[in-house]
């Protein structure tokens, strides 16, 4: 077995929220003692609904939120505390990259695709301009785009193409881990299939590992090796994807599975349960 590229241990995040009138602040525990590991080149699905804490976990992994407690290590290096120096931030970016749900907002509307990738390469690699240009062509090829697209602004691209650009930008840093937060949820079905196949191919070819944050269990089945089911900030079930989906142990996992429309599905069965 390969070793673990990512370790999260006893992760916690609490937020202070305003109560109602005259109630002052109260504390909301968004992530409560969550631990997991991700093998090198593996794919872990973190599954949950709104309020489950899945996006907060993604943001802590990427350093966009500081954990209230617990420990995160990527490639053996601790990142539980915010990075102070820019060199440290760059190093962390080189280890872990993120792809967000909405390709319409995660790209700069005034920056061409080529310039966006160029910037990522300038930050994260030692390549000279010639090397960068070659690498941009290579990255676009990996995600099924070509050099024509390098000159395009995001608005000239379709939703699926933009998400490919976001994936190419993440790959530019040659990270060990990519965190994908609902990265295919906003895409049309026919485009979603293309991006899922692309993600599987990239992982097989490059050995990059994925943390795949999603509410969609069918996507977890197609992309992930292991799954973690979250409910209100806590892990209620974990295991290999086959085990979690074919033989769910927790009531909440069973409910999630039964809520997905499939042939013969009847929503009334659920309300009864």
């Amino acid at each position, binding site marked *: 077995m390969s070793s673990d590229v990512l370790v999260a241990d006893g992760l916690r995040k609490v937020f202070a929220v305003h109560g109602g009138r005259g109630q002052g602040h109260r504390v909301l525990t968004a992530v409560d003692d969550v631990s997991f590991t991700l093998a090198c080149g593996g794919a872990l699905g973190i599954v949950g*609904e*709104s309020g489950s804490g899945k996006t907060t976990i993604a943001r802590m992994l990427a350093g966009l939120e500081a954990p209230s407690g617990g420990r995160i290590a990527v490639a053996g290096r601790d990142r539980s505390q915010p990075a102070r120096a820019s060199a440290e931030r760059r190093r962390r970016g080189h280890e872990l990259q993120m792809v967000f749900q909405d390709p319409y907002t995660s790209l700069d509307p005034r920056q061409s695709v080529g310039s966006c990738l160029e910037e990522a390469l300038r930050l994260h690699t030692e390549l000279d301009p010639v090397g960068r240009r070659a690498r941009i062509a290579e990255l676009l090829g990996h995600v099924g785009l070509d050099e024509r697209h390098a000159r395009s602004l995001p608005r000239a691209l*379709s*939703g*699926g*193409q933009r998400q490919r650009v976001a994936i190419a930008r993440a790959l530019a840093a040659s990270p060990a881990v990519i965190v994908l937060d609902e990265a295919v949820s906003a895409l*049309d*079905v*026919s*485009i*979603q*299939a*293309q991006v*899922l*196949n692309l993600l*599987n191919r990239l992982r097989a070819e490059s050995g990059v590992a994925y943390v795949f944050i999603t*509410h*969609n*269990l*069918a*996507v977890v*089945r*197609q992309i992930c090796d292991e799954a973690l089911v979250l409910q209100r900030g806590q892990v209620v079930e974990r295991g290999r*994807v086959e085990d979690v*989906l074919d033989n769910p142990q927790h009531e909440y996992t069973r*409910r*999630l*599975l*039964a*809520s*997905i*429309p*499939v*042939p013969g*599905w*009847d*929503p*009334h069965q*659920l*309300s009864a349960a």
Partner: protein
Amino acid sequence: MTALLEVEHLSVQLPIDGRLQPVIHDASFSLARGEVLAMVGESGSGKSMSARAVLGLLPPRARTGGSVSFDGIPLLSAGRRELRDIRLRRVGMIFQDPRAAINPVHRIGDFLTEALVRELGVDGAEALRRAEKVLTEVRIADPARCLRQYPHQLSGGMLQRVMIASVLLAEPELILADEPTTALDVTTQAEVVALLDDLRRARGMAMIFITHDLELAAAISDRVAVMYAGRIVETLSSADALAHPAHPYTEALLESRPDLRRRVAEIPQIPGRPRAAYEAGPGCPFHERCRYAEDRCRDQLPPLEAWERGAAMCWRADELRAAALYPGSGSGGSVPSRPEPGGW
């Protein structure tokens, strides 16, 4: 028996990039009282626009053609007043994002009673009583408290129940539900769909349910209309929608959904991207992504042709259906057998 809603040869053009471009081409469908029609398609297919056109809820400067008749009233030529009255009393709309449709600075009670009091002349106390009753019907646990709350205090699922309640208050004959559960969590979606179905059945209301999810559509509707590039390319009964699609697009859409039950090496994908209506050429709008396309598909638009269990807009629908329903029945070499997964 006459249909509640009859849409014939509906076309809609919108100003895009400074000139009028088609978003709906020649769409015809009808709906009987109490019937549910699901309209399914990807983004830009025209599924929302066709529902909005029915109610005259199109952007200014939109141009429409064809006819829409609601209980015998021609809607496309109806005046503002008449349309407003129909929207108030006879047709209700539920949108994807209840937060955008409910005024955030008013209490739920005000939102629910506003139309009753101001437009229908119901007395204030009576309106509140009705609002509380209807909140009970949408299974909100503490309706009196809910009436005093503001929208931001409710979850998305709760707010969508309030939206449904507001539609029920007017006791319409037709509900237009535009992706009403897309923004909800999957367990909440199941609850809201079940609720909508129960309430609609109890009142005998007809519904047009717009969604991108074929499996959800099949579960909630009697009939499904599949849209692509501004055209209805297939209509079929919900019982057949998942098992016997007759149009290659419907078939491909079903195959390209990630399978919940088993992992596949490669998900069958439709090449290219969905086309907008204004991008389509003279032929079948799907031909460039279709694995069965022939020369004529590129040049000639196929008619929407009826068969026993629906209608499909495909030159090869007959032979494909023969191959799919009777596999290996020796229809010659020209019909592809059902392709291998990943064989696009």
